[in-house]
């Protein structure tokens, strides 16, 4: 089953990912810093333009910054407006079945309609 404990396979995956990420980083540094003429003399002529070595990180950081604002905006848009019935009820509450009331037992869990809740809170019983 699924347990988070360390396993030999997981150790191997971890080390492979570690080596892979170091290799990727070294490759990125070489691509960004080694002059083009040196790369051509080695025979590597078809690598992407060095422009992208700066452009891609900038794109990524701007996307993360916009993502914060976008997430905030999406949350605000998904909030139900004050005049929607979603603030009061939903499909599960409309279709719920009433369990029979048993003496001396804790009443079953149910969605209490808002009129009843209001009467209990705001109209003091004499």
């Amino acid at each position, binding site marked *: 089953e699924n347990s988070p404990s360390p396993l030999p396979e997981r150790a191997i995956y971890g080390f492979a990912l570690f080596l892979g990420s170091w290799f990727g980083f070294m490759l990125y540094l070489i691509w960004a810093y080694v002059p083009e003429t040196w790369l051509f003399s080695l025979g590597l002529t078809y690598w992407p333009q060095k422009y992208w070595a700066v452009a891609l990180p900038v794109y990524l950081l701007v996307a993360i910054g916009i993502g914060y604002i976008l997430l905030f905006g999406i949350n*605000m848009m998904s*909030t*139900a407006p*004050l*005049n*929607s*019935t979603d*603030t*009061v*009820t939903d499909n599960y509450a*409309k279709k719920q079945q009433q369990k029979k009331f048993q003496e001396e037992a804790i009443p079953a869990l149910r969605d209490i309609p*808002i*009129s009843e809740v*209001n*009467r209990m809170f*705001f*109209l003091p019983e004499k």
Partner: protein
Amino acid sequence: MEERWYRSASGARIALRRRQHSASCRELAVRCPRLRLRSLSATTSAAWLAAYGLFVLTENSMVLSAAIIITLVGLIVYLHFVKIDQESLLVIGSLGIQVTSSYASGKESTTFIEMSQVKDVVINEAIHMQKVIYYLCILLQDPGDPQGLSEVVPLFQSSKPRLDCLIEVYKSCQEILEQRKTVPQSS
């Protein structure tokens, strides 16, 4: 006729006025704070200073006339379409509920809801602009399903009274709505 002072959700002082016209007819009016002279003059001065700054930069005198016209038109539009002076609720037991908003320019817009369509008047709480607010709303009956609810009509949208004021309005409305159950409706 009774008038009491409360606070709105944003902290401004609002007045609730209750009138009992008869045993089954009540009028509840919430009066919002008036447009203050100092905020109006602050906004106008800021707009005109910005326009003067633009004029000094661009040497185009149209900027000044445009600023004056925009300020005047903006003020008129604000008073006629945005600034609400008073929101009132007239509950007539056997007939219905009338909701009136009067704007600062004198315009009044009313909505009438028949009593057979009204399921209940409740205080609901919902998320509104990074806050959770209490607001009074009328629940409209679904014609097909007696337990169902077809629409929610929020009341007092621009004055946004706090819970103490809403409880008073709620109790007044419930006293009249309860009479519906005891007195049989004549269709």
